[in-house]
């Protein structure tokens, strides 16, 4: 297919992209600007983009104001990483099974996974709390990691399954004929070929785990040493004032691990890794 556009069509397309990007990026920009302003300049009427005395001061004072901030960021990172690892260990073989093997209840289970996503964590938070209490897991990392992983596994199975289904069955049959066992096939044939798909699942899971931990942390954890960043940020909310510039600075610093992970992993999303496997 040939896509040929006139100049004004191209301008239109980019304007459209810019409009939508603005909605996504404007909050980030505003957060950045707020983090630069001194506390008494945060609410300015009329709105000014550049205010007096802009500085990076908040990025330094926040560590003193909330001494355990670094710990919170680490906790967030640690919880999301554990969730991602657990999800990957569970999902890779599961998705392969769902993609390849015929077994009773397969389709029903897949449908149930979708249904779980529709319900979501917030609805189940009270029963989950009781479960955590009975298991004695309240106020541990596990209380945040286990439900985090449990709620992300179904989506991850769906994601990876559709990727694995595109891997030609002949590859496995060829390996099977050559005497490879199923675990050997999974490890030596499927995993390397599915790497781009697995990376996508890993990124999606990490971001998901990073975003959803607020709910579980708030409910299942009262040990402030274990709080992830979204809960930890509450300590900037004083009795009289909210230290908005430091809240924003801490939020932006808290996003950094996700950003770094993303940049690190996206190198592995190489298009066309399966080229030459079979004749299409």
């Amino acid at each position: 297919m040939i896509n040929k556009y006139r100049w004004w069509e191209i301008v239109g397309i980019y304007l459209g992209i810019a409009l939508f990007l603005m909605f996504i990026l404007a909050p980030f920009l505003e957060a950045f600007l707020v983090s630069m302003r001194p506390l008494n300049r945060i609410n300015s009427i009329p709105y000014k983009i550049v205010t007096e005395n802009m500085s990076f001061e908040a990025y330094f004072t926040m560590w003193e104001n909330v001494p355990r901030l670094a710990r919170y960021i680490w906790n967030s990172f640690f919880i999301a990483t554990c969730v991602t690892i657990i999800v990957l260990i569970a999902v890779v073989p599961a998705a392969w099974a769902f993609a390849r093997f015929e077994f009773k209840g397969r389709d029903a289970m897949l449908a149930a996974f979708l249904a779980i996503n529709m319900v979501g964590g917030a609805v189940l938070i009270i029963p989950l709390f009781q479960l955590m209490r009975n298991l004695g897991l309240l106020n541990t990392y596990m209380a945040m990691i286990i439900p985090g992983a449990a709620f992300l596994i179904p989506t991850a199975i769906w994601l990876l399954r559709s990727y694995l289904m595109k891997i030609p069955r002949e590859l496995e049959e060829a390996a099977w004929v050559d005497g490879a066992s199923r675990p050997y096939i999974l490890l030596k044939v499927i995993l390397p070929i599915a790497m781009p798909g697995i990376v996508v699942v890993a990124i999606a899971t990490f971001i998901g785990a990073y975003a959803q931990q607020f709910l579980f942390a708030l409910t299942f954890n009262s040990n402030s040493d274990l709080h992830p960043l979204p809960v930890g940020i509450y300590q900037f909310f004083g009795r009289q004032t909210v230290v908005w510039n430091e809240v924003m600075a801490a939020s932006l610093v808290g996003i950094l691990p996700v950003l770094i992970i993303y940049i690190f992993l996206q190198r592995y999303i190489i298009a066309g890794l399966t080229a030459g496997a079979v004749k299409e």
Partner: protein
Amino acid sequence: MTVGQLKLDNVKKSYGDVEVIQGVSLDVKHGEFIVFVGPSGCGKSTLLRMIAGLEEITAGDVEIDDKVVNTLPPVKRGIAMVFQSYALYPHMSVYENIAFPLRVEKRSNEEVDEKVRKAAEILHLTPRLQHRPGELSGGQRQRVAIGRAIVREPSVFLFDEPLSNLDAALRATMRVELTKLHHDLDATMIYVTHDQVEAMTMADRIVVLDAGNIAQVGSPLELYHKPDNLFVAGFIGNPKMNFLEVIGKGVEKDGVRVEVPGVGEFVLPVTAVDPNSVKDRALTLGIRPEHTHLSEGEIGLDLQANVVERLGIHTVGYANREGQDEVICTVQSGSAPIKAGEKFKLRFNAKDCHLFDADGKAFTRNLDLKGLGLPDLD
């Protein structure tokens, strides 16, 4: 190399109520090149996959080297398989692709290296060993897939339409290479194809499959000259054999007398065991397009040419008899004087005719294949 005997004993395969392989029996000797051929959906690939151990066997036995292998996994059957889509591992080099079966068996590095290099030598892949499959042409990829089969040194090689993804020129080259390979390795090979040219050129024996049944087993020329039934007669040969409705008149000393409506009565040199199966029965006369002539021949049909294809070496004419829709095909010399839209007389000899009864079963032709003077016919 082990002996590569294969025996199928009334092998059946059903999916639910549908029986796709309806009882196939076959004996394959060591070193034979057997081709399964048939239209799509005839079960040829399923049968091959059952021999390979990729499909379960519903009933019957598959024996390799006198051992029933029905429930054994592929690797324990002593087979190696080459797939239509090559099925190469894209993330491994050509070397590692060929070495894969040996790595699975955890052979020593020296042994792997020796065998891979030997296979690469045979298949002219040595300069390509460090490349990825994605960097190879279709023919080279298929050779890598064959290399992966060779290093296993199996009793039986199985090929599932290995050439159908290649272009015509490459296919002809690979056909010759495979025939040579078969000769060099002295191995038993089972080869599935829908391409009758591949079947005719490569096979020691062809197995023609029709809807899950064996229609006929025989050498290529046996199938060409003495097809057992209408299906084989129509399937082997290109262009397809022409069929005419005729009426049986009776059995005579030299053959069967038939009446070609509107043309006359002729005696065809075939053997009918039961005279009752002939007299006043509707029979089918078969004549191959390449056995029709413009000048000589006892039987003559008045035809009108519809389409004339000039291929240089041949002229292929498609014609029909006046008032009849049935297309009759003829192959003539490159400069044959037939023209689309014009009438001509097409002639052929009774000795070239095939005759089939109402059930499509052939009357045996009084033809001695040895009398054809072919050097390689035993």
